[in-house]
């Protein structure tokens, strides 16, 4: 005995197995399949044939998956560039902050608070972008490049602490700042590194 719901569930499984995992395309395809089955049945075709005709008309799973994948690949490439650019902005932002902070610490004069604030905002915004990008990046490719960029950026943030050891007249405030910076860096970039390693194992949403 033909069971329409079971056949649709099996068709859905075939689509999932072929790689159409994103819920939106699969849901849309299923809605389309059901509409076509209903139309065929209105024409007097029985349930089994209506399902078979509709499934053929909707197309092969592998073919559809390739088309959807083209869109995903472009989107993920943009995301990869965004993550790498945000990591660069984190490094660039800090490189504008450190000389000013150093001068402020030595002379007690803050020459450009606006510039300092802009650098800080750039670092924070870039940090949020990196985190968001990693959470939504769905490709396995490019992960190694991201890991290397995270390590490089992390080292850059720990460097002031290492350099502080070679300062003959290191002040307590400086020590506190560089220790805080290194600690925050280990926490942030460590989380990013871990997230980058963990995310590819999760199914695409």
């Amino acid at each position, binding site marked *: 005995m033909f069971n329409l719901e079971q056949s649709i569930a099996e068709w859905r499984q075939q689509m999932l197995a072929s790689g159409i995992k994103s819920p*939106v*395309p699969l*849901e*849309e*395809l299923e*809605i*389309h399949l*059901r*509409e*076509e089955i209903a139309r065929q049945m209105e024409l007097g075709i029985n349930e089994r044939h209506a399902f078979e005709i509709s499934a053929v*008309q*909707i*197309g092969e799973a592998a*073919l*559809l998956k390739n*088309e*959807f994948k*083209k*869109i995903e690949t*472009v*989107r993920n490439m943009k995301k990869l560039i965004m993550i790498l650019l945000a990591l660069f902005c984190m490094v660039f932002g800090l490189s504008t902050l450190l000389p000013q902070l150093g001068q402020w610490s030595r002379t007690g004069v803050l020459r450009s608070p606006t510039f300092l604030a802009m650098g800080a905002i750039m670092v924070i915004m870039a940090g949020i972008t990196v985190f968001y990008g990693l959470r939504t990046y769905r490709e396995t490719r490019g992960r190694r490049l991201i890991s290397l960029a995270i390590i490089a950026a992390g080292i850059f943030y720990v460097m002031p602490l290492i350099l502080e050891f070679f300062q003959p007249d290191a002040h307590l405030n400086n020590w506190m700042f560089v220790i805080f910076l290194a600690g925050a860096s280990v926490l942030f970039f460590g989380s990013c590194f871990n997230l980058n390693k963990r995310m590819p194992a999760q199914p695409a949403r």
Partner: protein
Amino acid sequence: MYLASMIRKELVAASAEPLILSLLSKGESYGYAIIQEVKARSGGKLQWTDGMLYPVLHRMERRGLLKSRWGESETGRKRKYYSIKKDGKTAMVKHHEQWSLIHSVLAGLKKEQYV
């Protein structure tokens, strides 16, 4: 004959975007209705593999030509409705210009054959 009456797949693929934009410029619609309307307007000669419409719609949405929303039909059936955006309208005008140009060139050449 199949080949004489059906439109070649390359031409079907090339015409998908202008057709979708033109249909949606009349008002929002959903995948199934778009396919049915294209089939009806072409007398069944313009046949898409039904499922292939959705990657095209998604790509156009990603490019900012369309927007979508989930809704329900009068019978309570869930549907994803697409509508045209401002950039979509601009793209549609460009498509119309290009297809009109191709049409006028072809029409001119055809006319010359009978002179």
